[in-house]
């Protein structure tokens, strides 16, 4: 345990100052400000629904929680139940098997709620467009407020996407 602790101390904070070319902090700062003014709360809880994706989006979203991106510092967090969520993120084309699940998850998310389609698959079905196994994009199943394109979108794209949504919602 001692070795682990010294390791921790020696490693230091990884969040900053990483050699960033991407303006995470800047986007994040804007995001935080946007959240401030939106709910009166300064926190957004995200419930993610994988409606049939390749898991590419999930990898990128997981990366949001790591030491590098550390989305918690902007007031974003993932929650375990749609009943706790403010934002519903949906990835992948909506397969027939997941159609009901997506609908119930949407139904259970308390208002005000935002639905974001993450990735090309979620926007219009992506490379699976018109396949018999899918219902279509997310917007064919539940109302979508915003879309974040990319296959998969990078974590920064995700953050920017959230920012755009919130700025849009503010207006």
């Amino acid at each position: 345990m001692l070795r682990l602790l010294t390791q921790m101390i020696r490693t230091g904070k990884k969040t900053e100052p990483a050699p960033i070319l991407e303006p995470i902090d800047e986007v994040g700062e804007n995001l935080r400000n946007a959240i401030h003014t939106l709910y009166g709360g300064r926190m957004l809880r995200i419930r993610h629904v994988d409606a049939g994706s390749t898991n590419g989006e999930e990898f990128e979203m997981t990366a949001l929680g790591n030491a590098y991106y550390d989305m918690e510092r902007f007031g974003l967090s993932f929650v375990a139940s749609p009943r706790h969520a403010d934002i519903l993120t949906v990835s992948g084309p909506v397969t027939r098997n997941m159609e009901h699940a997506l609908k119930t998850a949407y139904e259970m998310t308390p208002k005000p709620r935002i639905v974001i389609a993450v990735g090309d698959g979620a926007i219009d079905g992506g490379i699976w467009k018109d396949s018999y196994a899918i219902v279509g994009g997310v917007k064919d199943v539940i109302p979508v407020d915003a879309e974040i394109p990319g296959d998969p979108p990078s974590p920064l794209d995700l953050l920017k996407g959230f920012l755009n949504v919130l700025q849009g919602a503010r207006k």
Partner: protein
Amino acid sequence: MVASFFVASLILPLVAGVAALLLLRTKAGHMLTQLVFALGGLSGVVGATLFYASDGASTVVFHTALFSLVVGTLSVFFLGIISVGVLLTSLYALEGLRRYKSVYSLPWLAVASAFFIFGMQATVMASSVAGFLVAWELMSVAAYFLVIADGTEESLHAGFSFFIMAHIGFASLVAGFLLLSAGNPFAEWPEVALAAKTMTPATLSVAFSLLFIGFGSKAGLAPLHQWLPMAHPQAPSHASALLSGVMLKVALFGFIQSLFLFPSVPLSWGVVVLVVGLVSAFFGVLHAVVESDMKRVLAWSSIENMGLIFSGVGAAMILRTLPYEAGPVLASSIAIFVALHIINHFLFKSGLFMAAGVIVSEVHSRDMDIMGGLAQKWPIFSGVFLALALAAAALPPFGTFFGEWMYLQSLALALVGLPLPLSVVAGLVLAAVALVSGLAIVAFVKMFSSVFLGRARNEHAEHVGMMPMSLMWPPMVCAILSIVAGVLAFPFFSSHFMDGASIMQDVVIVQGASMNAWILWALIAGLAIIALLLARFLRVPVRITDTWDCGQPLTSRMEYTATGFSAPFRFFFRAFLVSRKEMIVTPISSENPWIANRRLEWSITSTWERLFYRPVGQALLRFAEYARKFQSGVVQMYLLFVVIALVGAFIFAL
């Protein structure tokens, strides 16, 4: 005046029994019978009230040369409980029993109840050994007929083991009392006590053990407890309420009464009673946690509560014998716990049995695994049941909690000042009682949630009808009384532990801020007002949706059953529970053996069965094998045995 009320309460059940036989199976006959029972109960209640309102001196109720009935302070306490029990259960039976008129023969059931009630009252009032034993036996035999009332295989089996156990107990009671009264069966209690003064400690110990076995087997103490969870649930629910809520108390009464017959109580007896009580409480509550038959859970919980009461009696016996200055004070406060718990256990157990009877008659099963969702159908009744369940779990603000608090507090106070080894024992007892009370919470939380919460798991539970008011109010009265017991116990209690620093030197009163009972109630009321204000303030839109199911539609079969809820306990306490699992596979298709109907059957038996009952049974059988050799069937041989016996008797007599 007082005596006539008690005579009425004694005679009226018998009148009811006769009336039931005369009026046969008419509705009016049933109603009249139960009302006469209720009247008997009422006159008992009035008698007890008058008795305590007056000077409370012993009164002779009935007197003949052969035997007489006397009431004193102790017996009127128990008579009051019997009477309240009879009153509530017979009013409940007005409607509750009528639903089962095709199952039971109501007139004969009424006769059995009549003798049962008469037997209990006469047991408590009996003033001599013989009277006591006759009344006791009357009570046991009548209880046997209540157990087998529905005539099913299961009931007959349960009734048989009840009968055997009751008579083992009876035999040891007879032996114990005769030993104590120096062989005079007609001795009055004071004479017995006088006779006991001259006996050797060894004789007294044997007599005590016999009496403890006799009363303990009736009260459901381990290891002679196995019959109780079989027998009590088989009786009709109002009779189960009497059996569990009242008859066990009569056994306790017998035990406490016979304690006063002994000239002194050595330390070791108290230790035995304490340990047996704790062991019973532990096994009772453990089985209550893992059992999923609704009425059996209640029966196991009776074992737990009787165990706790007996452990309290044992602790009080120990504390009285020790040369320890705070001992008598603590012993008397534990005695108060015993008294409070007798009342509280009676209230919640009778209420729960009656409530369980309603549920069973609506759902058509005693299996909690297939109930559920009743709270949506019966909001008020579920509130009543919740109150009773919380009382049974000994949570505030119910009377049970205050009783157990008193017990725990007294045990904790006994830690200080006792010699070191004994105070460590007190610490262990404290831990055991805490474990038992923790597990009791599980048993009743499990019961309430699997019966009332979530979704219905069978058709009957889904389509239950309206709750008739006539069945709802007797349990409701029990629930209200247990809340009242909490409200009244608290001031009484606080004067003992909080203000009464002089009684309990160990209690530090800070700044004279005395523990005022009403502050706690004010706090609770204040919190409730805050909560209501919050509810007003937080008026947000509410939307009714399905349950969150992760996309796979939930059915009621996916819910945790009562069995599932207690799975961790079966695992953690597997050393004390022997569970037998069996997968029964019946093939459906002859071509493919994999297509089969699979059913899991499993049962839980107690370790007592393996370690105690089985070996004893086998030893008896082996003995019987030997004994069989004497049974040659030749008449001359039997005559020879008679002669040998006679000669032996003569030699012994000379």
